[in-house]
């Protein structure tokens, strides 16, 4: 069958850069799905996008849908025909429904019963007659943020300006809002003009003549080679931040890389201030020398050609100069106030209406930090550092610099604390207490930083749970999940001797004492434990632990996160080993029957009736002693498994559910004791064995 290329381009006013790529992909997926659903064959799918357009070209799209040849099954023969062979209403209805006549009927036996069948043939429709449905694909796009414009009812990412819909050289006719589809596109806003795309093949080349590089990958390469050329010509190193490159790439239709300079005196500002001013505010790439030192230059990407570059560069320099002058002014002003004076301002900053001010938060975090410090038996010096850091951790939030550059919180805290004579460990802890800042970030290197980080995050999470703000689905406005994951990550790596439940309880107590708890205490606690379990589960998932092993580990309390993770790793390592299945079965038998124990009492050896009972009991006693002093989780696992023979013997010779009530409850008590020991490692009976 003959084929044609299909082209769809949606022309828009400038879309938000961050949504361009995902919208382009969405459009392509929707068209592919539509073609597949319609049984229209197609070839390669090519995606294009710029700030002003989303486009998809489908190569070799079939002229028509595939024909459909299928058997249709109707009623049973005895319903379809009377004894004289006359067709019943049911048979007539069936054939009518299938668009055939009773003459086409044949019979086939299914499960001993004869049924009516017909062959159905549906001729595929010409693709061009179906393509106006593309309209619904366009209007059916979903975007993170939509808007209306003029008199239109449609809500869309930005106003639609033009639509190209071509099947070969035929325009597919439809209209959306006041825009009718056609074959005319628009070029670069200033360098190009409107242009006709006669066939889909011409799409890229016609646009290129109009200074639009439609393929984002090609634009990206133009930017990268522009940067490389500068690096070579100037002997610079220009680190390319992927997110920034992606954003810049989606702000331009025809990129030209250029550079500008700023006054060397600004290099005295903290590096992060310079980098943030350039990257976050201006979307510039900072420039370094080959040794990694920041240079007084920046690189930017213009949406246009290489004419008048000097003018553009001069304009950009002026903007950056104003920003850096501001930053210098803030830097000087902030240093005029000591930490104590600055801290007083925290009284006036509401953290959350129902949770109180930042000053109040600081007091709670100080308390929790103190408790953690003593629980972890920090030495006097470390405890002092931690306490001081907890007290001043938030002071930079009320400096001019952080007010202007919120992303520099913590970083400026460290800088200013050092300038104001704080010990360097205290200064470091201020910055570290925001770590891990994102999923790939590392945990605070120092103990004071880590303790403060855990306390600060825990206070935030518990406070929000206390007022009923609990993340659900995609709703997590205060990033509580990320913070909980941060705590879990710190506990897993630091291997402190403390349980997660203890930290939650300590924080909740403080929150309750301050009158923030607005819900039932038990319920809040249960929600918190559940919430943290989900984060731990996430961690174990990332470690590649099998899901049933994770469930078995998380069946009970979370406890010490590091040892929990280690237990999971041990199970994961052992699961393929010979004998694992048998050991697990033995341990599971104990656990399963122990459920029936209603009143656990001390086990009385005098009630033992056979050798296997005494043998298991003795074995359990010795395992218990060793288990308590075992230095690692592998040893603990081996100890549990070492009871296998005794357990098997026991069950072979002992009827746990004996008639005699005394015997039965003594046996169940033993089962319960052993079960509790096993359970402390993992709910082994939840593990799947094949």
């Amino acid at each position, binding site marked *: 069958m003959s084929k044609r290329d299909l082209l769809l381009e949606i022309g828009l*006013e*400038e*879309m938000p850069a961050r949504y361009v790529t995902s919208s382009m992909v969405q459009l392509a997926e929707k068209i592919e799905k539509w073609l597949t659903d319609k049984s229209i064959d197609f070839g390669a799918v090519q995606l294009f996008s710029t700030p002003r357009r989303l486009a998809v070209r489908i190569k070799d799209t079939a002229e028509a849908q595939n024909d459909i040849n299928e058997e249709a099954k109707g009623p049973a023969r005895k319903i379809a025909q009377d004894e004289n062979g006359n067709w019943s209403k049911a048979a007539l209805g069936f054939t009518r429904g299938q668009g055939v006549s009773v003459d086409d009927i044949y019979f086939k036996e299914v499960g001993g019963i004869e049924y009516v069948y017909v062959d159905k043939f549906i001729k595929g429709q010409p693709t061009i007659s179906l393509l106006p449905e593309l309209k619904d694909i366009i209007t059916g796009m979903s975007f993170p943020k939509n*808007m209306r414009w003029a008199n239109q009812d449609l809500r869309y990412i930005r*106003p639609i300006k033009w639509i190209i819909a071509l099947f070969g050289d035929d325009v597919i006719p439809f209209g959306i809002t006041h825009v009718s589809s056609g074959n005319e596109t628009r070029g670069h806003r200033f360098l190009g003009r409107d242009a006709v795309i006669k066939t889909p093949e011409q799409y890229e080349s016609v646009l290129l003549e109009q200074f639009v590089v439609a393929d984002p990958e090609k634009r990206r390469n133009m930017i990268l080679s522009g940067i490389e050329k500068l690096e070579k010509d100037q002997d610079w190193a220009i680190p390319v931040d992927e997110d920034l490159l992606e954003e810049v790439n989606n702000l331009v239709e025809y990129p030209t890389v250029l550079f500008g300079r700023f006054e060397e005196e600004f290099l005295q500002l903290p590096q992060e201030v310079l980098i943030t001013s350039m990257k976050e505010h201006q979307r510039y790439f900072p420039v370094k020398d080959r040794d990694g030192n920041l240079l007084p230059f920046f690189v930017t990407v213009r949406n*246009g050609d290489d004419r*008048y570059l000097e003018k553009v560069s001069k304009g950009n320099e*002026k903007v950056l100069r104003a920003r850096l002058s501001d930053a210098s002014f803030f830097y000087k002003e902030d240093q005029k106030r000591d930490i104590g004076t600055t801290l007083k301002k925290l009284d*006036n900053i509401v953290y959350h209406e129902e949770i109180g001010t930042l000053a109040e938060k600081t007091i709670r975090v100080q308390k929790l930090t103190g408790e953690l410090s003593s629980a972890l038996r920090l030495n006097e010096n470390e405890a002092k550092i931690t306490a001081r850091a907890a007290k001043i951790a938030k002071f930079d939030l009320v400096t001019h610099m952080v007010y202007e550059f919120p992303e520099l919180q913590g970083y400026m805290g460290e800088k200013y604390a050092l300038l104001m004579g704080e010990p360097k460990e205290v200064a470091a802890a201020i910055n570290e207490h925001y770590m891990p800042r994102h999923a790939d970030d590392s945990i605070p290197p120092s103990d004071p930083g880590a303790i403060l980080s855990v306390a600060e995050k825990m206070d935030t999470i518990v406070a929000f749970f206390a007022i009923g703000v609990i993340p659900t689905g995609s709703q997590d406005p205060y990033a509580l999940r990320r913070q909980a994951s941060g705590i879990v990550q710190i506990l897993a790596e630091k291997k402190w001797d403390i349980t997660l439940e203890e930290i939650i309880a300590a924080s909740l107590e403080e929150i309750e004492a301050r009158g923030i708890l607005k819900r039932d205490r038990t319920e809040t606690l249960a929600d918190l434990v559940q919430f943290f379990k989900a984060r731990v589960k996430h961690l174990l998932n990332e470690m590649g632990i099998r899901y049933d092993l994770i469930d078995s580990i998380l069946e009970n309390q979370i406890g010490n996160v590091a040892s929990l993770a280690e237990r999971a790793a041990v199970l994961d390592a052992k699961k393929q080993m010979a004998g694992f299945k048998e050991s697990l079965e033995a341990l599971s038998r104990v656990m399963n029957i122990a459920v029936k124990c209603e009143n656990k009492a001390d086990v009385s050896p005098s009630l033992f009736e056979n050798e296997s009972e005494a043998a298991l009991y003795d074995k359990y006693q010795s395992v218990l002693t060793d288990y308590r002093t075992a230095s690692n989780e592998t040893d603990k696992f081996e100890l549990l498994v070492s009871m296998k023979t005794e357990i098997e013997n026991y069950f072979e010779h002992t009827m746990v559910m004996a008639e005699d009530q005394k015997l039965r409850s003594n046996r169940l008590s033993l089962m319960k004791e052993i079960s509790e020991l096993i359970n402390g490692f993992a709910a082994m009976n939840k593990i799947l064995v094949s």
Partner: protein
Amino acid sequence: MNIQNMILTLQKHWSDHGCILMNAYDTEKGAGTMSPYTFLRAIGPEPWNVAYVEPSRRPADGRYGENPNRLYQHHQFQVIMKPSPDNIQEIYLDSLRALGIEPLEHDIRFVEDNWENPSLGCAGLGWEVWLDGMEITQFTYFQQVGGLDCKPVSVEITYGIERLASYIQEKENVFDLEWTEGFTVRDIFLQPEYEHSKYTFETSDLDMLFQLFNMYEKEAHRQMEEGLVHPAYDYVLKCSHTFNLLDAKGAISVTERTGYIARCRNLARKVAKTFYEEREKMGFPILKQKGEAINEQA
């Protein structure tokens, strides 16, 4: 080009595109959006095209005339077109050409920026327009005003006059800008900048301001009950400015702050609703008058 000529140029340009040229509204306000020519007229179905210069007061930005970039009072050139014209971006870019900014010689981009003014119950989507990396214009499609959905949608274009002038005149300090031949911003505005800053941060009478806020608020409610939207709205503006004065002096504690903003927002919402109802009672007169033109566009 001096500021006076910039304003004349923009006025000519937008007038040529069908805007009514208005003058600044005579009540203190923090932004051109708060003028009744924008806030009220963006509400309801009646068409509205207008352009005006709005002196905007931001007490907290007062710097005694010592900071080269920040002002107690700056000027915005404000354009509102309802419904938003199909070629509004092109009309805007032509206004830059009229100011002598030839796009081919610069880097002009539309960078996403969504605008929200919670104290007026307003929200919109659009861009900041970047000229060689500098934000020179706020470009917004209003989605909600005073808590009411905008239908049709107005487009708001706000040029920062001093910002744009500092680029055109290549000046680092806002006070060096030429307003008209022989007069700089310094000549005209330095003294008021200093005095208003001193007033805001040092000599204002807080008790009086608190009292005024309450009086203005009460009067706004009372006039709304009479169905007198415009007098009521004047008092909303006075409330807002009085709040800004109190806030700049740090006189409003954090807990109270949320309360005051909510009070302004409630007033603004009520005014918006009343305005709509009053226009409806009148049968949306401008819509009737221009009905045909609208239908042609739709």
